[in-house]
């Protein structure tokens, strides 16, 4: 035993020697390496668990239409052009697609309407995690493949919303030849599957389809599957560590004479490194272990920009995003049921100060849920709400509230009920300092005029169920927006109470307005309704949109062709390449 320490010393020296050996490794061509904060958890095209899974799936698979970062709109990907739209009566839409002639699977078989039909049928196949996909594509009622031209097919959709055109092409197409090689599902129509009672045991064809699908979906550490027709194939997936992709040696889009922006694929290899800690990610970027650090926090971004060494190696980008930081009031509470009270309380949020404190001023204040850069739809006639606790006190008195003592609690006598007290419980995500700052600022402002606020920091996954159950008076959260869609039904329609309408807001007039926006077909008409909706929302104040966030990104100067976007994930990796020279660009 007495020789153990010298042995330990020898081991340490050996380790150091090995390290020296390591540093003398010759450099080899590196992939483009991107930082992710968490594992994608699933690469199942029917169930993508998080934003990273969606990002990976967009590289492995293709949809009929894809988001075109150069136009900030949907562009044809597998489809040759946008679908032709025919309205049927007053409740149906018919969309006819033509697939690209060159579009083919990796084995050279053409991609046809039968693949699209099978993908839609998969959404109704029992035993698969297809519930969300089914809910999103549920408006597609039938699919008919042209018998003479299998590359041409028609979707019949329920409703006539403009957004149906984009949504009808926004799902990944999967190969019938792999999942249903005997074409057993062809005789079964989509409506038949839609009408199927969920508790009925699946027939043998559906069971086989489910089995083949589950076997083909890639798992961490498992073999790479050939389900996608996208530009990349999976090389390896080490759970919670890294996801590696490689450009296909033969991809159908290579044959296109003029490749559209959505079908660009330049980097030969991609590596997504899962680094949960921000400080580690920043050091890894400076240490050249990664090349791209998206979604940088405001503080980290400022810190990196302040560093002279980092400035020489890194390029910094910011872009507006469509994520809105907003507060909401529980309109089901008697004290908060009236618009004047909620509007009065809206003046307690110091949106400008919060934007500076949490985002270092990077972002845009807003009057509503439409981005201020949206020239057509943003209501410039409305004023940004100032931070004014005195105005809150004045408006509260006008709403019938009285203070029992000069700095005491606020009370009012309801018309038919007990006396109401104005004391609020503020719920927010505990793991995000920005929301804590908002809650603390609101509490301090409320305390200055005698309103007591209790803070309820809540674990991230428990926040939504608590908000759905109405267990709060005020909340702050991030609302993910979209520049293409103006569908307020899930967040503010009365039918979504208990689901996504956390505030419980909804009047016959506001519901009608939301439905009219969803149904409006002409841009001018839609813009008018949207401006009206923003005014209604500001007057009724169930939600207080504080500001739109900004996307921040730091990247190695070794990269070129990096395309920054205000759409998720904030950059386009497929146009990015590593510069051939090793010296950083000043």
């Amino acid at each position, binding site marked *: 035993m*007495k020789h*153990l*320490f010298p042995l*330990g010393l020898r081991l340490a020296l050996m380790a150091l020697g090995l390290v020296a*050996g*390591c*540093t003398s490794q010759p450099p080899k061509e590196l992939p483009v390496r991107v930082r992710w904060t*968490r*594992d994608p*958890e*699933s690469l*199942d095209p029917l*169930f993508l*668990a998080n934003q990273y899974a969606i990002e990976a799936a967009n590289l492995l698979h293709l949809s009929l239409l894809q988001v075109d970062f150069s136009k900030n709109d949907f562009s044809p990907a597998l489809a040759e052009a946008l679908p032709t739209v025919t309205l049927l009566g007053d409740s149906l839409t018919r969309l006819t697609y033509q697939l690209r002639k060159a579009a083919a699977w990796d084995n050279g078989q053409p991609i046809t309407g039968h693949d699209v039909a099978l993908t839609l049928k998969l959404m109704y196949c029992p035993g*698969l*995690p297809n*519930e*969300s996909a*089914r*809910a*999103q*594509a549920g408006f597609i009622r039938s699919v008919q493949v042209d018998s003479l031209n299998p590359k041409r097919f028609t979707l019949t959709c329920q409703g006539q*919303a403009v957004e149906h055109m*984009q*949504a009808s092409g*926004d799902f990944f197409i999967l190969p019938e030849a792999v999942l249903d090689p005997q074409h057993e599902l062809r005789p079964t129509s989509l409506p038949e599957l839609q009408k199927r009672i*969920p508790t009925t045991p699946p027939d043998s064809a559906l069971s086989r389809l489910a089995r083949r699908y*589950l076997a083909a979906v890639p*798992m*961490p550490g498992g073999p790479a599957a050939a389900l996608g027709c996208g530009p990349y194939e999976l090389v390896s997936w*080490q759970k*919670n*560590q890294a996801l590696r992709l490689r450009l296909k040696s033969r991809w159908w889009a290579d044959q296109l004479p003029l490749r559209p922006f959505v079908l660009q694929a330049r980097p030969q290899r991609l590596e997504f*490194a899962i680094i*949960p800690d921000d*400080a580690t990610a920043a*050091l*890894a970027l400076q*240490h050249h*272990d990664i090349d791209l650090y998206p979604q940088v926090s405001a503080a980290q971004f400022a810190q990196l920009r302040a560093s002279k*060494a980092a400035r020489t190696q890194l390029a910094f980008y910011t872009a507006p995003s469509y994520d809105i930081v907003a507060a909401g009031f529980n309109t089901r509470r008697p004290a908060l049921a009236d618009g004047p009270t909620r509007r009065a309380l809206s003046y307690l949020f110091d949106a400008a100060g919060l934007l500076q404190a949490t985002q270092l001023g990077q972002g845009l204040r807003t009057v509503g849920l439409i981005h201020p850069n949206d020239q057509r739809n943003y209501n410039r006639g409305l004023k940004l709400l100032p931070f004014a606790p005195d105005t809150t006190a004045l408006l509260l008195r006008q709403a019938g509230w009285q203070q029992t003592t000069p700095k005491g609690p606020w009370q009012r006598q309801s018309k038919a009920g007990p006396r109401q007290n104005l004391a609020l419980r503020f719920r927010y995500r505990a793991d995000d300092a920005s929301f804590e700052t908002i809650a603390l600022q609101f509490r301090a402002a409320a305390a200055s005029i005698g309103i007591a606020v209790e803070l309820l920091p809540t674990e991230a*996954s428990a926040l*939504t*169920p608590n908000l759905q159950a109405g267990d709060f008076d005020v909340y702050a*959260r991030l*609302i*993910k*927006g*979209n520049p293409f869609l*103006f*569908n*307020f039904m*899930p*967040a503010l*329609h009365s*039918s979504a*109470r*208990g*689901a*996504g309408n956390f505030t419980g807001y909804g009047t016959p007039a506001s519901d009608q307005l939301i439905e009219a926006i969803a149904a409006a077909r002409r841009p001018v008409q839609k813009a008018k309704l949207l401006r009206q909706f923003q005014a209604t929302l500001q007057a009724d104040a169930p939600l207080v949109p504080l500001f739109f966030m900004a996307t921040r990104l730091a990247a190695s100067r070794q990269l070129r062709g990096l395309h920054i976007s205000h759409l998720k994930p904030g950059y386009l990796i497929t146009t990015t390449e590593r510069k051939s020279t090793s010296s950083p660009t000043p």
Partner: protein
Amino acid sequence: MAKQWLWRLVQTAAGIWLLASLVFVLSHLGPVQGADVLLPTAGDLNTAATPGSFAQREATRRAVQRRLGLDQPVFYVSWQSATDTAGGYWRWHGLPNQYHSWLLRTVHGDWGTSLSSREPVTTQLWQAVVYTFPLVVITLLFTLLLAWQLAEQLAARPWWQPLMQTALTGLQALPLFAIALALLLLLANPEVVAWFPPYGLGQTTPTDVGWGPWLSSYAYHAILPAVSLMLSVLPAVTLQLAGALRNELAQPYTATAYAKGLSQPQVIRRHALRNALLPSLTQLTDLLPTLVAGTLVVEVVFALPGMGRLLVQAATTRDYPLLVGGVLLIGTARLLALLLADALYKWADPRIR
């Protein structure tokens, strides 16, 4: 003796079963369920056809529950609140319940599959343990060697004893995240000293690059995480052992040993150490579950895909099969560590036998 050990093993198995059952039932009784986490985020405006209405969302939720078998009762019995009165009553559900299905599967060696990735729980746990195990074993071995040497020196009361004791006590007061972050920001920071990489342990495999380069890369990347872990464990082990050794050296039997002409290191190794080891044995066996459980803080700071991160992820995403499997594994390691502590006590102190 064999009967006694068999009885201890039965007790341990019962303890593990009770622990896992408790975690299973409690995790399924919380306000947030696995099906909730698998639904699209509610209240966002980024999809055209999110299941917007309450009825649509509930239908989707029920479909998820049905697919995962979460629509069955959690346990054999449940408390039903009466709708018209303040009281309630117990309702018997019989064998078709989630706990019964889980128990049967577990007994047959099937720990289920992850709710989100559908990957077998055993595969995920194995991958995480295999990743963390070598790092923690190496760290513990180095820690024990260093602690032993330091304790032996400190027991002899050299001139630097107060200084070292103060340093070790100060180090013990530091939380692990502070140690790990300090090492990272001091030794892997291009703005200070970039001697070590901040990230990248286990990114290559021996089949990718060959054994030599792999081993060198592993050692290079493992130094900072291993030193962080070592610094967090070293003070407790050293101070405890040094204190116990000092106590033993004050006992009359050591005077006899000195009188026989033994040097102090010989007295410590041949006579005092075995007696001083008793409290340290418990401390060391306490560290064994760490081999399995991983160390969350170090895993997060150095981006290591170990058991700690896996279990936190399982807890936040309400991935119950993975969470219960993890608890089962760690609980087993913990209870086996207690058994080992008992055995070592009996080896070290014959009076206990």
